[in-house]
């Protein structure tokens, strides 16, 4: 089956973002396709390139970036939420006169239309909130 995920949870509060990444890995291992992961609201903080965690802590960013690298999972970030939370790709950094990009390159800026498209083109849309 084709899965898409909607991530509303901050990676810095609770385990939901990490659980979602584990869900995506497991779905792929079970033979499914994960088409798109859409990050909205505080979920967009998963793309924070400059976030530093304790050495013994797996970060949500690592988990998501691996899914993009190894399994071509599209990591789509809601641009409105991202900008509110200070997440800029290089284009938005230039446009908003921010000296550098704050978003990991594994993620792409996107709009809510991509969420609607994910819902329409997937067999399952699984939401992770809280």
């Amino acid at each position, binding site marked *: *089956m084709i*899965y898409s995920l909607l991530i*509303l*949870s901050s990676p810095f509060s*609770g*385990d*939901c973002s990490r*659980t979602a990444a*584990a*869900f995506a890995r*497991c*779905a792929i*291992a*079970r033979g*499914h396709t994960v088409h798109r992961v859409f990050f909205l609201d505080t979920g967009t903080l998963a793309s924070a390139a400059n976030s530093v965690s304790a050495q013994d802590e797996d970060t949500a960013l690592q988990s998501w970036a691996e899914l993009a690298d190894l399994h071509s999972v599209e990591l789509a970030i809601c641009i409105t939420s991202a900008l509110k939370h200070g997440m800029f790709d290089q284009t938005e950094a230039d446009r908003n006169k921010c000296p550098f990009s704050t978003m990991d390159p594994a993620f792409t800026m996107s709009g809510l239309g991509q969420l609607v498209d994910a819902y329409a083109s997937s067999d*399952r*849309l*699984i*939401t*992770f*909130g*809280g």
Partner: protein
Amino acid sequence: MILHTLNAAPSSSAFADCLKTIAEGDAVLLMGDGVYAAIAQTEASRVLEATKATLYVLADDAMTAGVLNVSAAVSSIDIAGFVALTETFPRQQAWY
């Protein structure tokens, strides 16, 4: 047939709203702060057991929260069990 993923403490309005919508044939997966409703002999586990839904708890989240005495009516599942539930249930409702 809806899979309710309940990531909210038993005292929350999300928890109460979820309870109102559970129907026969549904499944409830307790995760995050929702795992406290899996504790045996509590008001929260009793009201969940009174529904006609099949009850599950995400084992990793229960362990993280220190929830060890899980009600006998609640099955502990891992992430593969979660994916398997979404294979069976065409629709999911996230409560948080």
